[in-house]
């Protein structure tokens, strides 16, 4: 990238999470943008602080201490902007936020399987909890619908329905109970409304609910025809609506937003934007996947050739909502990932204790095993849920398996611990269950959302930071799709290093193998697969002299089958998981 394109502006990014607030500085070093450092402090959205800007200031102060550079004014109340000749301050700021309770949402669509589904998909792009839905197939009377809306007290209503120029009376019929319920609520409790339906009805929507909503937002129709769904423009509108709701709910966010000149985005949306951006820049015929296992939610963002999918699941977050995980899974399913013989009650107790203290961490080995098991199951469930909304035409080996993704980027506290990349990788392999050949990257500083937010101010910065090594490459993973007997040879690979030396592996079913290939190095790989084994080139077809890149672990061969084949016997299963852990250096 020519240096002349770089404007020499420093950018501070603040991410206000449920547990931690991070302040990250990006600056120009030797003509290119670099990730400089990051400061972390506990978030202060909750009592007794009840002011997210306090946590942000603490994070900035932590960053100041690392950098030995002044960013806050002497009173430590305001950010120095723009940067001063003495090197203090920054030139711009972006803010991302995921802290706060899931936004209580009413989702409205005309037809249950069409616009209501689209509205649900749209709602799942942000930190929302769907409390109720309304559609034409709703059997309740209008007064029952009104009472339901009053009971759930939604913060937000998302309305879709009616193809452009299509049904209007039906949409109006659905809007009536919403308007009446809003009318009955005190002004300060009325929901914000997003209308993303039949565009001809905009004026009527304004007259029916406009004066009764705290905020009325419009977006282009997310279902302009039965066959077409276009959620992207509405996602941005919803993101802005979410930030406005959070500004009402969380003191101090208005201050940060003012500093940022309005450049505040939901963390999930910013991550999704980054995935879209990366898909455009590095797009291949495979998809690009980003998973973020955080305290407030699990975010799955996937970019495909012509479509991106952003899913935010507060119900699979590892913080205050973690007890709710048991509404979607069983303790036994969590325990199947455990290397230790842990009583089921310990899992339930852990979930409750963690929900009381979301910022607490595992101090003992046993606690760590529980945390990892819960994290695996949460990410597994999130991937299963997200897969329903991946495009059918996405490149895949089998439609019932995870589509082909390359690269896979992983972030969030449970995944980004770079001290043991093997453990993070195993968590990822078990829950995401990638297929074929993928590069795996750890976002150890949780930069994805910050770069996504920064892209709105500076589109060179994300590219240069990405290429600067701010992310940790774990390596290349080869995951054949096959089901056979344990111990059967399924794949033979030969890796030729840049210096001409070679290494070979004979992968057996049920095993994990590693060949070294350091970060920044490349090699050529030739793979021969057994009959019926598919690594993305078709059953029984391998590859010759394919260029691959290295990472902290090198080249990982996952011969455990897809879907992952785990023994039913708990003792044998635990032994195997231990072996897999050791194989990846996780201990």
């Amino acid at each position: 990238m020519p240096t002349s394109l770089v404007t020499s502006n420093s950018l501070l990014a603040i991410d206000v999470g449920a547990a931690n607030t991070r302040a990250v500085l990006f600056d120009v070093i030797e003509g290119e943008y670099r990730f400089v450092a990051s400061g972390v402090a506990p978030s202060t959205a909750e009592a007794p602080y009840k002011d997210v800007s306090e946590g942000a200031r603490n994070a900035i102060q932590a960053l100041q201490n690392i950098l030995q550079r002044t960013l806050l004014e002497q009173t430590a109340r305001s950010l120095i902007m723009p940067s001063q000749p003495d090197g203090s301050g920054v030139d711009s700021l972006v803010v991302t936020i995921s802290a706060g309770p899931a936004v209580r949402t009413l989702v409205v669509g005309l037809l249950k399987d069409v616009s209501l589904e689209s509205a649900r998909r749209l709602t799942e792009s942000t930190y929302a909890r769907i409390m109720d839905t309304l559609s034409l197939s709703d059997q309740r009377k209008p007064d029952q619908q009104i009472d339901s809306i009053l009971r759930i007290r939604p913060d937000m209503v998302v309305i879709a329905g009616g193809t452009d120029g299509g049904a209007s009376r039906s949409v109006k019929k659905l809007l009536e109970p919403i308007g009446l319920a809003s009318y009955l609520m005190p002004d300060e409790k009325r929901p914000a409304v997003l209308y993303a339906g039949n565009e001809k009805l905009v004026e009527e929507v304004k007259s029916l609910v406009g004066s009764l909503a705290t905020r009325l937002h419009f977006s282009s129709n997310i279902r302009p025809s039965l066959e077409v769904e276009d959620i992207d423009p509405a996602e941005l509108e919803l993101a802005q609506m979410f930030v406005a709701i959070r500004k009402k709910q969380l003191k101090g966010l208005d201050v940060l937003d003012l500093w940022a000149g309005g450049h505040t985005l939901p963390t999930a949306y910013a991550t999704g934007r980054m995935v879209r951006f990366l898909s455009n820049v590095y797009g291949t015929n495979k998809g690009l996947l980003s998973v973020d296992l955080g305290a407030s939610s699990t975010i799955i963002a996937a970019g495909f050739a012509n479509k991106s999918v952003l899913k935010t699941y507060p119900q699979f977050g590892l913080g205050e909502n973690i007890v709710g995980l048991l509404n979607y899974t069983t303790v036994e399913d969590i325990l199947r990932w455990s290397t230790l013989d842990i009583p089921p009650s310990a899992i339930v107790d852990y979930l409750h204790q963690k929900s009381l203290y979301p910022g607490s961490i595992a101090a003992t080995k046993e606690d760590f095993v529980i945390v990892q098991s819960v994290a695996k199951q949460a990410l597994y469930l999130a991937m299963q849920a997200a897969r329903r909304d991946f495009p059918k035409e996405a490149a895949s080996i089998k439609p019932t398996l995870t589509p082909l993704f390359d690269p896979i980027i992983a972030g969030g506290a449970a995944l980004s611990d770079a001290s043991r990349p093997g453990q993070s990788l195993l968590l990822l392999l078990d829950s995401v269950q990638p297929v074929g050949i993928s590069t795996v990257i750890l976002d150890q500083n949780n930069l994805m959302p910050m770069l996504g937010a920064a892209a709105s101010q500076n589109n060179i910065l994300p590219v240069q930071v990405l290429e600067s090594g701010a992310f940790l490459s774990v390596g290349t993973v080869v995951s054949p799709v096959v089901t056979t007997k344990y111990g059967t040879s399924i794949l033979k690979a030969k890796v030729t290093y840049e210096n001409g030396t070679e290494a070979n592996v004979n992968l057996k079913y049920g095993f994990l193998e590693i060949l070294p290939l350091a970060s920044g190095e490349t090699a050529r790989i030739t793979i021969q697969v057994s009959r019926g084994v598919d690594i993305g080139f078709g059953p029984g077809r391998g590859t010759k002299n394919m260029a691959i890149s290295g990472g902290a672990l090198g080249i990982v061969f996952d011969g455990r089958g897809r879907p992952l084949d785990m023994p039913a016997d708990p003792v044998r299963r635990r032994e195997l998981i231990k072996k897999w852990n050791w194989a990846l250096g996780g201990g």
Partner: protein
Amino acid sequence: MLAPVHHIIGLTTIVRERLLPISGNVLARVQQKVTAGEVVAETRWAREHTLLDVARILGVSPAAADRLIKCKMDDQITAAAEVAVGRGLFPRSVRAPKDGRVVAVGGGQVLLEVGEAKMELRAGIPGTVVQIIPNRGVVIQTSGGLVQGVWGNGRIDAGLLVNLMEGPDTVLVPARVDVSLRGSIILGGMIRTVEALQALADLPARGLIASSIQPSLLSKAREMRFPILVTDGIGTLPMNSAAYKLLSTNAKREVALNAEAFDRYTGARPEVFIPLPISSEPPMPNEVEVFAPGLQVKMRRPPAMGIIGSIVSIKPGLTTLPSGLRAQAAEVKLENNETVIVPLVNMEVVG
């Protein structure tokens, strides 16, 4: 690093806001002395609504229906009262299905609220009303002992505290519950069976202070008509020594039990308040501390979960824990004289 504070204090001054969830009437006045059970504000709301689609029933346009509707906003209507009547020789009429109040008229429809419910807001703690929040509630100030919990079933009451615990790890068994405990607030220990809860409900008891409760009993505990406060956690946890000492030494005293559900955003916490005679107003507790040597702390996670200790030193930089994670940590001397290394995020200051 900032430290969260869990209040377990022998004598302090507290100020608590008591607010209605919706607008209503405040009954108390500034400087009024209130008891824990005294109603300080009240409100009413409709249990449900009935929408009468007059236009559809009479088969006329909404505009025409509006002209035929005989009631207006805020009218009180009795069941079977005529809401609208059509035109013609044999006009049809629309009648109210239940007693109610008209809350909206227009577009050919009438919306009634029916089944009014009343909500009374009690003081929760005995004390003095120091501020009125118009239409919402009061601020009460008082002095005494305070024990905060981690879980509450949302109910509130006051009564004589009776100690059924023989030690911090006592399990409450139904056999310990007898009729002499009727109307008391029970210091009960660990709750492991539904029978223990049922025995208290059968008395009935005025309240229960438990150290822990089995997760499977939480929904049953929410159904109980008396307040239940959990001091330490969900599962099987003994009572922390500070809470046990303070509560057990105050047995036979009147206590106020506000088992408000824990809300991390508002700061609402379940609390036991022990009114005590004072000669001068004790200081208010700190809501935030900074981790420092000498502070009394409670562990939030294993290996010493629930145990109280005091910080010996704050470790410089990051410490590698037995789990492999690296975090800011402190050396803590536990009550049993054992010294452990604990990440700061796994502790809360007690005081």
